[in-house]
């Protein structure tokens, strides 16, 4: 499903092989360059891991953006806010399971010298201490169960309640209204949760780091990587594979793909494509939300985390090629890795400030050499 229009065909496969070849050559070239300026192999592997983990968040957001753009033709600037909302579902659930009742303990005092109030979580009182503790500990993964229906609902309400009215309007209008919506969502979250980041820890089982270096034949303790970040990468891979499989192997997905290629014809066949596109919007919202839920332990959620990711995710979409799902995923990972490379000390000494501009630099180079992005197809946003 490199791009929706050119499925199959020998030429396409050949072209794809060439692309993979170019990609590998660039990667090997960058690796050699880094070794040349004195970066250790383990250092490079660490930054590749960093890049994959960050890139998988970009990829998940960019995937949703592309899905919405490909189906509904809307450039959704509120997509970062959906990612942020997902993270705050984890925060909220974490807070809910931690809700406590208060008892006054006359033997202790609080900061004003009054008798201290001791708090015991309700879940411990209801389900027993062990089960209650487990729920609190595992609150982030458990909040996925709430995030799926909640984000789907948010997606539906957003599409039916607002974005629907902007299908026939120019892209500039769509960008303005979705950007405005993003600000509104952001301010609501800030009003409720404040401006400071809120720590939302991963389960104890995933605290600490995994010695990745031993696996790859390096010495012990050279490449330590936090368990939860590995979990995040695997989780993202499963979600991405799931979305691709859904589009490829289900009838629903087939109709959606057909609709993305030629909306009118599918409509003429008597299929209610609009309803399916609405459902795709909800799915894209769920994908962004889940990306946010699982990201909460990596980056303590704050109200503007969505904006931070949105801009980069848009660059990812453009570099990957507007409308190309595989392009979004590939560009997400590539840009994630390049950004990690650029923030290495050795690179910064050579080219100061490169860490702040690398993504945009690469975007410019790619758009100059391949105006449709890595895997973009003809005719998208070119009318």
């Amino acid at each position, binding site marked *: 499903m490199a791009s929706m229009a050119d499925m199959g065909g020998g030429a396409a496969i050949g072209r794809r092989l060439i692309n993979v070849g170019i990609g590998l050559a660039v990667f090997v070239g960058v690796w050699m360059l880094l070794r040349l300026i004195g970066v*250790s192999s*383990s*250092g490079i592997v*660490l*930054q590749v891991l*960093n*890049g994959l*983990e*960050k890139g998988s968040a970009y990829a998940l957001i960019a995937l949703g953006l592309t899905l919405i753009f490909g189906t509904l033709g809307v450039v959704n600037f509120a997509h970062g806010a959906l990612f942020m909302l997902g993270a705050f579902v984890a925060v909220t659930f974490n807070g809910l399971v931690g809700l406590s009742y208060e008892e006054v303990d006359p033997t*202790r005092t*609080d*900061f*004003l010298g009054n008798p*201290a109030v001791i708090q015991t979580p309700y879940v411990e009182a209801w389900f027993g201490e062990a089960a209650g503790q487990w729920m609190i500990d595992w609150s982030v993964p458990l909040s996925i169960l709430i995030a799926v229906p909640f984000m789907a609902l948010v997606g539906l309400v957003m599409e039916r309640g607002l974005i629907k009215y902007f299908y026939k309007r120019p892209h500039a209008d769509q960008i303005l209204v979705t950007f405005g919506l993003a600000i509104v969502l952001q301010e609501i979250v*800030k009003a409720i949760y*404040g*401006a*400071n*980041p*809120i*720590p939302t*820890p991963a389960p104890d089982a995933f605290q*600490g*780091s995994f010695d990745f270096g031993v696996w790859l034949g390096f010495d012990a*303790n*050279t490449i*330590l*990587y*936090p368990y*939860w*970040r590995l979990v995040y990468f695997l989780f993202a891979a499963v979600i991405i594979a799931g979305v691709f499989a859904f589009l490829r192997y289900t009838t629903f997905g087939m109709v959606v793909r057909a609709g993305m290629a030629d909306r009118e014809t599918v409509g003429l066949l008597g299929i209610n494509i609009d309803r399916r596109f609405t459902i795709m919007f909800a799915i894209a919202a769920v994908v962004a939300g889940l990306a946010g839920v699982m990201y909460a332990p*990596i*980056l*303590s959620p*704050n109200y*503007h*985390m969505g904006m*931070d*990711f949105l801009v980069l995710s848009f660059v990812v979409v453009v570099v990957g090629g507007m409308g190309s799902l595989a392009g979004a995923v590939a560009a997400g990972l590539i840009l994630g890795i390049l*950004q*990690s490379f650029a*923030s*290495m*000390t050795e690179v*910064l000494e050579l080219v100061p400030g490169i*860490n*702040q501009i690398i993504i945009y630099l690469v975007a410019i180079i790619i758009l100059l050499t391949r105006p449709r992005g890595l895997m973009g197809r003809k005719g998208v946003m070119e009318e």
Partner: protein
Amino acid sequence: MTTNFTRRGVLKTGAIAGAGVALPTIFTSRANAYTNEPTGDTVTLGFNVPQTGPYADEGADELRAYELAVEHLNGTGADNGMLETFSSKSLTGQGILGKRVEYVTGDTQTKSDAARASARSMIEKDGAIMITGGSSSGVAVAVQALCQEAGVIFMAGLTHANDTTGKDKRANGFRHFFNSYMSGAALAPVLANAYGTDRNAYYLTADYNWGYTTEEAISSATEAMGWTTVNKVKTPLGAGDFSSYITPVLQSDADTLVLVHYGGDMVNSLTNAVQFGLREAQKNGKDFQIVVPLFSRLMARGAGENIKGIFGSTNWHWSLPDAGSQAFVRSFGTKYGFPPSQAAHTCYVQALLYADAVERAGSFEPCAVVAALEGFEFDGLGNGPTLYRAADHQCFKDVLVVKGKENPQSEFDLLEIVEITPVEQVTYPPDHPQFAGGELGACNNGA
């Protein structure tokens, strides 16, 4: 029919008249002896704090402190707070010079241009006689310069960079908060004591003036103790995920990481460092250590478990046992239900210090207030005996070295005081290299 009016002439006249009208009145008005001289029975103070943006929580706490200060100044509060413990007894709860204190607020957004715009609006439109507040050194330096031009007093809020009372100092500006140099001077001996004198330190530094001066202060103070600086890496403000900056730390031969970050950035970088196992790591035969030069309780809350056992410095903490601190915590805690932050404390104190200086000077005239504050020695405001040094308008007082508490007794009990560093140890000459350049200049009455 002929007429003297030509199109060109009308345009010319219009342009000149327009330019005249557009000139800020604060630079042209000559009606008063000084800018915004209060003529009625009230006086207006301008509280310029971050109400939106990354430091909005600090800003909200600053505003609470100012509201409390106004109540105490006007004598309308449930108690009199630090008015009872303040060594100067000029303030009586009758307002300032008998005028009831009113206030307006502005939103700095933690952006220099927005902060200047809101300060300008409070001075020009609302008639604020004094501007105070803020939670960033970039903002403090920008607003201080504006207040100097406009001829009003600026009582800085939370600003820690050396520059505020160093190369960017101004005669109309005053800082109660401590600074980067003081953090270094107080922290270094404690660090050498706890972690030894043979350490290799790696710096991750926020890429703006506060980061630079703090990095310089800590590195020179620790190097004097025998530490080696391995690397100094600047990180963009609001980087979010710091993992790509953290991972090279373990690859280097550093055994100590100094995080020169504040607010959300510090919460994120510290969380990342802990996730990457830095706190369990061994380097050069020693336990790896992390240091955070500037701590606040609001930050400690964000960092959660990760803050435990980590050294830093702070301007003030609610658990201090002196009468002034206790009185303030009681007033603030009773009104709002939680203890005040260091940002709230410094802002409250600044409001009181300004009001007291006006009372002692017998006038709101900025130059008279400057004279009253310069060289002013006081006590009872929570930091022990304090001097507002005339040479640079910096307060000199004891500095707190703190550590993330291992066994907190409450949700506010996050920092424990390790040492109260005496003021002599953190005092420096006004021409110290870290503060070199820049002149106070003459005070400006405006008008």
